[in-house]
């Protein structure tokens, strides 16, 4: 019986000839990523060793990545002290894949991992962040876990008692119309599947549209697969994956492509044609509350956010900057831009995008998660509305349960910033 990509990856990682959906395996882990919540992982890790008489040493510091991104620079003494504690652990155990708060190599974990070449096709990646699904864009099986599970992996090097998830095959065809792209596609898919439609399942992306899509776009699809409940999204590796890893991430060693068998068993197949897809908006307060932009156009927006691990990449900033050229952010609307990494920030600076944002009236912030998780930077006032290229619109997400968040693409966000209301970029004078 044929295997899906994830079944092949898990079989190999567990040292088995073959696995099928719902088998229980203990795969070795190739990369274990944490961010600020490494603070809790360290606490749980030490607790595992209590009373064992053994020294609490991670199984392989070379396979651990820690990236500060959620609250950078620290918003207060508690976060700053957490950062300090993690730095101490990193130094003690020689964790090289550590990205501190820096303007040269910092950024959001889900951008730093791909751009530094830490993720390879066929690898097993875990992260203490639900959007760890992102790295499936490079053909890896990559999923989010909690801090205690990470502590267990730091101790043992394997993920314990994993059920092989069934896979839903998503086949996408057609060319995107102007101002429609990967964000609109994944919002459409989430609306179709619902917020739990892929719970405990993998979304495996196929079709001509995916083959032509850049890694940046694939990261958007896999990033938000979790919003349909998926354990992971995955794009089987191809020429584009190899191009990205060579040119974008500087990988020189051999890249192996793990591909699904022709007779792989899928739970179901979902087919989508994007040729007539309209810009999509996820309306408050669930990500599956998706409507075509026309249905909510005209809604007043107090804050526009462009950035995050979903849409803070160079092509996203280029699209937004092009729409803002020669225009101004509307009075009564604030626009915040958060590039996804220090590298992207530099590239956007050189390309002139950041100057364009500032000239238009936007505020360019340092790379990081920023307002997406409502901790600091860009909280909303009572009754305010935000339109964001981020990935979640749960009640209270942007720091205030008395506010509302709509999600969209960078093109919709930029056009709406100019108009001050939710605007279709195809008709909004762009």
């Amino acid at each position, binding site marked *: 019986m044929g295997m899906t990509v994830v079944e092949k990856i898990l079989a190999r990682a567990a040292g088995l000839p073959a696995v099928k959906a719902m088998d229980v395996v203990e795969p070795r882990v190739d990369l274990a990523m944490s961010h600020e919540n490494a603070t809790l992982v360290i606490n749980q890790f030490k607790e595992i060793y209590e009373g064992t008489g*053994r020294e609490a040493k991670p199984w392989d510091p070379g396979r651990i990545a820690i990236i500060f991104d959620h609250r950078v620079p620290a918003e207060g003494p508690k976060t700053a002290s957490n950062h300090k504690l993690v730095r101490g652990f990193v130094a003690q155990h020689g964790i090289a894949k550590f990205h501190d708060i820096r303007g040269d190599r910092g950024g959001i974990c889900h951008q730093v991992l791909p751009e530094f070449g830490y993720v390879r096709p066929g690898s097993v990646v875990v*992260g203490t962040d639900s959007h760890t699904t992102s790295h499936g864009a490079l053909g890896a099986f990559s999923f989010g876990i909690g801090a205690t599970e990470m502590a*267990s992996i730091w101790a043992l090097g394997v993920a314990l008692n994993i059920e092989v998830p069934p896979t839903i095959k998503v086949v996408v065809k057609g060319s995107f119309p102007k101002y429609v792209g990967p964000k609109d596609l994944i919002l459409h898919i989430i609306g179709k599947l619902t917020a739990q439609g892929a719970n405990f399942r993998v979304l495996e992306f196929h079709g001509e549209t995916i083959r032509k899509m850049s890694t940046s776009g694939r990261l958007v699809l896999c990033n938000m697969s979790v919003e349909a409940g998926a354990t992971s999204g995955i794009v089987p590796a191809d020429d584009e994956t190899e191009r990205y890893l060579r040119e974008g991430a500087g990988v020189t060693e051999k890249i192996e492509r793990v591909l699904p068998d022709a007779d792989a068993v899928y739970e179901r197949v979902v087919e989508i044609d994007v040729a007539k897809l309209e810009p999509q908006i996820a309306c408050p307060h669930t990500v599956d509350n998706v409507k075509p932009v026309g249905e909510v156009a005209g809604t007043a927006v107090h804050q526009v956010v462009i950035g995050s691990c979903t849409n803070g990449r160079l092509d996203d900033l280029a699209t937004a900057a092009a729409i803002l050229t020669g225009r101004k952010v509307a009075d009564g609307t604030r626009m915040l831009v958060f590039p996804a990494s220090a590298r992207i920030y530099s590239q956007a600076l050189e390309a002139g995008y950041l100057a364009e944002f500032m000239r238009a009236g936007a505020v360019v912030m340092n790379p990081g998660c920023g307002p997406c998780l409502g901790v600091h930077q860009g909280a909303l006032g009572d009754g305010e509305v935000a339109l964001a290229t981020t990935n979640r619109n749960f009640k209270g997400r942007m720091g205030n349960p008395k506010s509302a968040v709509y999600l969209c693409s960078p093109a919709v966000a930029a056009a709406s910033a100019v108009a001050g209301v939710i605007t279709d970029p195809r008709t909004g004078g762009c």
Partner: protein
Amino acid sequence: MGKVVLKLGKDISTDDIYPGRFMATVLPTETPQFCFFDRTEFNAALKAKAVPPGSVIVADENFGCGSSREQAASTIRGHELVVVARSIARIFLQNAINLGLNIVICPTIEAEEGDELEVAPGKVRNLTSGKEFATEPLPPARQAIIDAGGLIPYTRRRLLERA
């Protein structure tokens, strides 16, 4: 047996259970204070110790969707509450099992705040309405972790089994 102290709809996110702005607080001993913080009355009742251990939160489908933040499980665990939900999002379910939070998947559960529920093998009895609802077993793959009392003791045992 426990009284339903909070009835929730579907897609209750971890931002609802444990708002992002408290994520710098991580220790299971400290997270309970922020449990459902923005549901101010319920949070106040918890803090006033007016909600006895064993009380029940009843939720519709996809409870705990969203972030992987483990605080969402530890904050409920800290008050020794039971969660009975029609379905549970993957990461929250695993966090709950790993931390030993008492969770019950009951796809057809019907209960109102104030109802008395009894969790029995394979079913939940609503003693107030007199109805019974079948439960779904937790993932069998996780049974060893549940039996060990959580992932920390289970990992400790596995570690010690290694030479």
